[in-house]
């Protein structure tokens, strides 16, 4: 039989399409199932009450608050360092060996398994610095984990500001830092914001780094200070789905839905900012 290139193409494209469906359909199903089964659990009490009866009833308020604290702490730590590192790479770094090593370090930092971050946080913050299992230790661990994400996103944002903007500013007598501060940064803010929000989402969803650095199995009150332990949503979901028997399915799905909504909402905000910015871009 003679090979017919047209038919081969049709068959090939069909399989490519099939592969794509194989990824996209399960994603859709996962979302539908979680929303469908989780929605009945969501009410004001679930969102605002402490867990009761060994986490089999009541709400998840302390876990929500704990996650918010952790994420906030992580970003307070990671954003200044990440942004300055990005400024260094985009505005100051020359194309030399040191820069190459920095970039490699960022790639590696992004690739370190999340549970290894947990070990590191335990060894450095909890034990060596004697913070104990605390919001501070957990936030710092999460902060280091999202650092590469923030650096990469901010650097891309800074580098996408046209070089001519800088040249004009210099020609007007502005110094290098003045140019960065007043010309480059303002134009890069949407991109930096996008990266920061994606970092927030990532930090909110991670469990392994907080396992030994902050997460409390069951703590039916709000944390009192940065040195207090806290519950966290992802860890809470892990606990009620594997460690505590006879938790009603509704509560598990409800917790999963709240976590997923939080993370996806942040991603959505980031995508919207990026989209609006792209449309508004004047260069």
């Amino acid at each position, binding site marked *: 039989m003679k090979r017919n290139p047209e038919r081969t193409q049709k068959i090939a494209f069909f399989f490519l399409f099939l592969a794509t469906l194989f*990824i996209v359909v399960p994603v859709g199903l996962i979302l539908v199932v979680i929303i469908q089964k989780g929605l009945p659990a969501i009410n004001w009490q679930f969102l605002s009450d402490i867990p009761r009866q060994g986490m089999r009833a009541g709400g998840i308020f302390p876990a929500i608050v704990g996650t918010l604290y952790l994420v906030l702490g992580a970003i307070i730590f990671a954003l200044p360092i990440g942004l300055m590192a990005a400024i260094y790479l985009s505005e100051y770094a020359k194309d030399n060996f040191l820069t190459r090593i920095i970039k490699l*370090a960022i790639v590696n930092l992004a*690739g370190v398994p999340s*549970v290894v*971050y947990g070990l590191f946080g335990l060894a450095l913050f909890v034990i060596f610095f004697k913070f104990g299992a605390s919001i501070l230790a957990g936030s710092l661990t999460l902060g280091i984990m999202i650092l590469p994400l923030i650096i990469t996103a901010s650097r891309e944002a800074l580098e996408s500001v046209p070089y001519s903007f800088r040249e004009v500013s210099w020609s007007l007598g502005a110094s290098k830092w003045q140019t960065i501060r007043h010309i480059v940064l303002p134009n890069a803010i949407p991109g930096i914001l996008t990266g920061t929000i994606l970092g927030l989402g990532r930090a909110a969803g991670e469990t392994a780094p907080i*396992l030994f650095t902050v997460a409390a199995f069951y703590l039916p009150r709000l944390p009192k200070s940065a040195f207090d332990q806290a519950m966290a949503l992802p860890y809470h979901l892990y606990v009620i789905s*594997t460690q505590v028997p006879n938790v009603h399915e509704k509560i598990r799905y409800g917790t999963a839905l709240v976590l997923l909504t939080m993370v996806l909402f942040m991603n959505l905000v980031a995508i919207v900012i990026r989209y609006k910015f792209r449309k508004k871009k004047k260069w």
Partner: protein
Amino acid sequence: MRKFKEFIIEKLILLCGLASIFFVILIFLFLLKEGLAVFKIATPLEFILGKSWYPISEPPRLGILPLILGSLLVTLGAAIISIPIGVACAVYIAEVAPLKTKEILKAGIELLAAIPSVVLGFIGMVTLVPWLKQIFHLPTGLTALSGSVMLAFMAMPTIVSIAEDALYSVPKSYKEGAFALGATQWQTIWRVMLPAASSGILAAVMLGIGRVIGETMAVMMITGNSAVIPHSILQPVRTLTATIAAEMGEAVVGSEHYFALFAIGIVLFVLSFAINVTADLFLHKKK
């Protein structure tokens, strides 16, 4: 005065620029500090190739071979599932899909990447695990295969997005040249685009696998956590990452068990370092 202020700011910026190097070294040093003590009780060879992991027996037996094999088995399964599907999806998005579909598909992939691993683990527990139990008539659905399937979904966003970038960065003239010679779209993809993007695709695959090896929560929730040498993909296994996550909470600080878990951390760190450096080399070769 202003010059002085700028001098300080620039030094601060340089310092932050170096922060990534500092943190990578710091992580490695602290893993070594806490983990190397294990080699007072077990030689590195005994540790890596020891067949039994009984960390709290007396004396403790700290062989991580079952855990390494568990990780390998799960990773291999995930790779077999995710590489063909991921690369095919990348090709579809980059070369075949119409513009609007492309945007939707990319958003879908980003969505998948954003789902926290503990949520995927939970979904695996309530759907995949009972299905597998029923289909294969197993005593438990918590098997290496469940882990592989779920992890394949976590590797796919990485593979798709990086492979797609690699395809985009192939010079347009290659494609135009192939079309000018009368090649069909598929012939162009198969004979020109894929070979031209091969090093980027290879990097995509490696980074996807790196993600799988390091994954913790989903694996811990659905692979059954039994630290024995696996004989089939339908058996419960325990991975390196899950061992750390499951046992560190109970390990006494300063005990052999504690040291051994940090030593596993060293293994994971070195592994991910090797994968990332190699993948980075491939990505740079492209340019």
